[in-house]
């Protein structure tokens, strides 16, 4: 026993470990995949397959649900709304977070700790606590100034970008800290202002962290339900609320619901899986340290 463990490198675990790992990971993969399989297979089934007893295999494959989803509810409109809101919220959130994180990472100033603690602690607030006041605030701002925040995409963008802001700032502070200061000092010596140093040196060096933050911000906005259900109207409804349209009708078109779910998931899941390396790298360099 002792001689074998001496010769074993830490990268070559014992056989019992390998077998328990195989069993565990297989079971877990099953748990993770079953709903994904249900979503995919049901989206290709004829309606009779999803109204009767559940079938693992479709009686026949059809792409009909993928055609019908666009006419049963105005899915394209919801899709556009979600896209506009999420892209705008992501862009604003990333830019604002880059500036804020740069200030915290590179400067000493009064109130720095108060700022970071306050921003992070907003994560603790129950959404429900500021949902009602924000709703009233937006309505009142609208009445007083004529700027339509309630029911508009602008109001939703404003709300969503603050949701991802705390985590983004926190993660970027860690990431910027890991970018050597010599780099921006050199840029300053070369005659760049502080902003030039940020944009030409620090940002390019921190691209993985920034990509990770953008992915997070986009996912946050794309998946939010609570505020979308209160703050949107027929014209600005996003997917989060719009998808419920398939089940309030007399028949529940489960094959269409699954097809629509798949369609709205593909952009985020594909983007996330492509960029997840950056997220792990960003977390390792920044947040988790």
């Amino acid at each position, binding site marked *: 026993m002792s001689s074998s463990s001496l010769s074993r490198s830490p990268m070559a675990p014992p056989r019992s470990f390998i077998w328990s790992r195989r069993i565990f990971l297989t079971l877990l993969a099953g748990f993770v995949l079953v709903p994904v399989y249900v979503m995919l297979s049901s989206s290709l089934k004829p309606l009779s397959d999803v109204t009767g007893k*559940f079938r693992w295999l479709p009686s026949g494959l059809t792409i009909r649900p993928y055609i019908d989803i666009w006419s049963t509810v105005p899915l394209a409109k919801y899709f556009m709304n979600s896209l506009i809101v999420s892209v705008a919220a992501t862009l604003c959130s990333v830019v604002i977070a880059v500036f804020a994180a740069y200030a915290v990472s590179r400067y000493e100033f009064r109130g720095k700790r108060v700022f970071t603690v306050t921003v992070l602690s907003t994560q603790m607030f129950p959404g429900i606590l500021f949902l009602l006041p924000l709703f009233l605030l937006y309505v009142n701002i609208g009445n007083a100034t004529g700027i339509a925040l309630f029911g508009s995409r602008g109001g939703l963008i404003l709300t969503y970008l603050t949701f991802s802001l705390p985590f983004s700032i926190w993660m970027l502070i860690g990431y910027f800290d890991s970018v050597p200061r010599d780099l921006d000092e050199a840029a300053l010596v070369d005659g760049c202002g502080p902003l030039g140093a940020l944009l030409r040196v620090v940002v390019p060096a921190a691209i993985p962290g920034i990509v990770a933050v953008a992915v997070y911000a986009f996912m946050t906005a794309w998946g939010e339900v*609570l505020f979308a259900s209160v703050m949107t109207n027929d014209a600005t409804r996003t997917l989060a609320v719009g998808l419920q349209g398939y089940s309030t009708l007399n028949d529940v078109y489960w094959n269409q619901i699954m097809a629509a779910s798949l369609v709205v998931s593909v952009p985020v899941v594909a983007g996330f899986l492509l960029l997840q390396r950056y997220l792990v790298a960003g977390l390792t360099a920044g947040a988790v340290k």
Partner: protein
Amino acid sequence: MSATVTSTVTPEAAVRKNPSDPAAPGPRRRRGERIRRIGLPYLLLLPALILELLVHLVPMVIGIVMSFKELTQFYIRDWGTAPWTGFGNYKVSVDFSAPVGKALLHSFFVTVGFTLLSVAFCWLLGTVTAIYMQDNFRGRGFLRALFLIPYALPVYAAVITWVFMFQHDNGLVNHVLHDQLHITSKPSFWLIGDNSFYALLIVHVWKGWPFAFLIVMAGLQNIPKELYEAASIDGAGMLQQIRRITLPSLRPVNQVLVLVLFLWTFNDFNTPYVLFGRAAPEAADLISVHIYQASFVTWNFGTGSAMSVLLLLFLLVVTGVYLVLTSRGRRSADV
């Protein structure tokens, strides 16, 4: 430390080396730089600050004010004119012998039980998986991507798939348990009645554990390999290495991870809302949905706000106690 070095040295260096504005008188120029240097960080923070104030802090203050008002639908248009009720809304919320208070207390206990179980499962699954996948093997990258799918899926798309699976007549769960494995004598209801608690838990763990996995995985990459090499030369087995090196090194990561999981789960609205719709079954009546119903279904914003403030106070206390306890534990472990 190096931050102060940067901010004191470089502007002068920049002035000296910059040939384009040579004639600026030294002291005045330097004072301008000074003001800019002090002002700049605040300027950079300003957008974030304004937005956080507008969307989080101001509404929170309004929410606290609202909780002292009798804010029913008659006063929505102009909520400032609603009459004050002092602690009236709070009295109604915590009067546990009356229906409103009783329902809130029940919802609170359901949420506590749900949160503890969900956080425990998410953390356990995430940690075990991350440790199993710490060293390289064939298919590791593929599995990692696969395990992150539930996290990447939009909540509503993921949860609505589970709603389909939990259907009484045409769902997968009843088909497997009843028709294929014959475990249950008749098909069960999953989205109403007592089972709804377990349905909610399963869905939430399914969706939430990859986040724990992601964070622990990132945390593991910061553990120096030399530690494992030294331990294995000393004859420490796999399990011992995990217990003596991996888990202690993860402590700071876990401190934040568990807290974040706890807060997100406790405040979660999206999962129960999509799973059950507006009327959550009693067994799965999470606090956020409960308050939402108390506010938007009955249009009684005052009581809803009071409940939200109580929820926030509870979370503040729990977070404070948690941070004190875990930080003290960590310090004594270091000694």
